[in-house]
């Protein structure tokens, strides 16, 4: 069948402007589809990273806004397979003017000596880590946060608390690097506890649990929840990935949004490609007649036209995929990146999906004109004057 490849290519190159416009049009749409596919893949289909697969998040069964008692930590640590359990408290509050969304970043009260063993993927110089552990009002911040506000070691950051009323001042003692977007500040929970009235102490937002092996994660999660089942405060434990995904639903119905946009994009590509193929076949009715006189069977002619459409769509799809990798890298750097597992722009499954989709759309779009051309009787085709 590849015997006809040069012929197919030559045909598609005959009306260069049209082919180029079609390729660009398909390429632009495909790049959008590529981004959507990779985001969808990252959200719903990707495996957790090796670090992430080891972490569970335990929260109050009622909702994240209701606290857990701190002594649960010791009981969780006794469960076989649990290597470590760290208290993590969403601090909230506001930095400068909270009404400006640019000033928003995450702040957590945590246990400094456990932070970097639980989040193994975070890297920080040893001396900064030690400085963070030894100073009560110290904090560590992610590289992205440091870059955004131009924070340096030794800077003071004042946060006005809301859930925990009062002014809190932290000294930057470390800046860590993360494979993910890291607009986050971690500080010592002891500092927070000491500022609270007696009645509010000993409460915890969530526990971050580190397990020994990824395959044990589900079982350990269930064990944690069942061991508190008859307590006054019940827990809900989920994988870190699922926990992060529950925040994505806050942006709206992301799944439906992604699916409906990609359906619209695919249909647009289909129309563009079908239009081009219909135009190009219409111009060539006579030629098809000639080919038939030369002995080409209707099947071969069908194949030739389908092949032409597929070639154009494939090229467009490939270009689109290339552009989409650039855009996907941009998505990772955007605020959404914090919710995403590290999206790899060159994910092979995304690339394959893009190419297959492009190819299918090309074939589908040319089916009708190709079928028509293949079935036109020789005489009628030769007589055609268009």
């Amino acid at each position: 069948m590849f015997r006809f490849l040069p012929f197919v290519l030559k045909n598609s190159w005959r009306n260069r402007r049209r082919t180029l416009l079609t390729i660009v049009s398909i390429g632009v749409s495909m790049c959008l589809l590529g981004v959507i596919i990779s985001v969808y893949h990252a959200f719903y289909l990707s495996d957790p990273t090796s670090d992430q697969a080891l972490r569970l998040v335990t929260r109050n069964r009622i909702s994240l806004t209701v606290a857990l008692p701190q002594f649960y930590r010791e009981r969780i640590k006794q469960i076989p397979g649990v290597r470590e359990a760290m208290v993590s408290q969403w601090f909230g509050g506001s930095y400068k003017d909270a009404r400006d969304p640019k000033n928003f970043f995450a702040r957590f009260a945590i246990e400094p000596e456990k932070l970097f063993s639980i989040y193994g993927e975070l890297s920080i110089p040893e001396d900064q880590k030690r400085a963070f552990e030894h100073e009560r009002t110290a904090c560590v911040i992610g590289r992205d946060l440091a870059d955004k506000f131009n924070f340096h070691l030794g800077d003071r950051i004042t946060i006005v608390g809301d859930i925990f009323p009062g002014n809190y001042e932290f000294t930057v003692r470390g800046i860590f690097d993360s494979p993910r977007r890291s607009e986050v500040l971690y500080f010592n929970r002891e500092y927070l506890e000491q500022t609270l009235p007696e009645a509010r102490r000993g409460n915890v937002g969530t526990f971050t649990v580190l397990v020994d092996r990824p395959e044990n994660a589900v079982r350990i999660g269930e064990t944690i929840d069942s061991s508190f089942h008859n307590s006054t405060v019940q827990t809900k434990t989920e994988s870190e990935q699922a926990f992060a995904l529950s925040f994505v639903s806050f942006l709206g119905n992301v799944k439906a949004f992604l699916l409906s946009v990609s359906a619209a994009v695919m249909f647009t590509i289909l129309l563009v490609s079908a239009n081009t193929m219909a135009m190009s076949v219409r111009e060539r009715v006579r030629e098809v007649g000639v080919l038939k006189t030369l002995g080409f069977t209707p099947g071969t002619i069908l194949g030739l036209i389908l092949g032409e459409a597929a070639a154009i769509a494939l090229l467009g799809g490939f270009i689109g995929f290339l552009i989409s990798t650039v855009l996907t890298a941009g998505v990772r750097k955007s605020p959404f990146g914090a919710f995403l597992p590290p999206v790899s722009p060159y994910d092979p499954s995304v690339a394959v999906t893009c190419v297959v989709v492009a190819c299918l759309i090309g074939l589908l779009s040319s089916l009708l004109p190709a079928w028509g051309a293949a079935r036109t009787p020789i005489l009628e085709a030769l007589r055609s004057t268009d």
Partner: protein
Amino acid sequence: MAVPVAYNLRNMVVRKTTTVMTALGIALTVAVLIAILALVNGLRTTLSASGDPLQVLVLRKGSESEVVSNFTRGQFQDIKFKPGIAAGKDGQPLASLELVTVINLASVDAPDGMNVTVRGLPPAGIEMRKGLRISSGRWFETGHRELVVGKSIAERFPDARIGKRLAFGRGEWDVVGVMDAGRGAQNSEIWGDLNQVSSDVQRIDVLSAALVRAIDAPAARALINDLNSDQRLNTNAMSEREYYDLQTASAAPIQFVGIFVSVIMAIGSSFAAMNTMYAAVARRAQEIGTLRVLGFSRGSILSSFFVESVLLAVLGGLLGCLLVLPLNGVTTGVGGANFSEIDFSFHVTPRIMALGVAFAVILGAFGGLFPAHNASRKEILAALRGI
């Protein structure tokens, strides 16, 4: 002299397959844009219907949402008798001390659970919300473990219907009524008696916020100033309308992504329109020559093809509007300030549709410019010979 528009219209009819395909491509692009705008508009409508400008929401200083705010009974007693607060049926000031908390409920489309606002409030709080009515069942009674759910909660959460029981806090609660807040965000909330709810979540003394109703608009402004400047109270007061308006920001990510998507799709469709118009120019070379012989100037040819491209785009834009109309009224949700979901519906307005058609016109103008220029540059003899 300009070439009659009828010439373009007839041409579009003659090449109906190409016309329809190109127009449909444009229609989809416009549809995506309109859908996004309708979504954002729906949220805006819901939020602006939720807040009453006469009502003043009092939070603790430093708090921007009810759920993170801490408000003590002591603070409430201090603000309750401020001047300018309207009186209720019982002669007491219309002021409501409220507790806002969030529970996780399994919904039809999120079996893993969705965050829902639970609000505990005294009878005055219900009296103050003028736009609210019970659509079925009855209000909860003070001192009982009873709940009233918003109408979209009742639709989306199978566990939250009249006669069912919800488990949170120290036990189970009876759902006794469904409330209808029109388009308001209260449709996405669950309400119960203040003292019952606050004791269940162990926040008897530290609640979330207070809502007070002012006599009139100047009184509301004065009240806000008074509360914010009173250092002793340490509160952050704003009108309820303003509080909800600020939450429109939660639609910003979707709006941004949506407009980005529409612009990229528009680039794709305008190339497609260009393709169609180039084909039209090529096929009608002889006609163009004839028109020129008849005395139509290059300018008229240019504008004629340009107009044809725009007409094609307008057709696409109108089709796009038709495609989106069924979405009007469809309900969806987005995370709000209280760390829980606000339900709202797509709201397609004539203005949004006009914007969509205008967008299509720009797209068609861009796609038609070069082919039209190409057509106007044809030499008469070459064109007549049909090369």
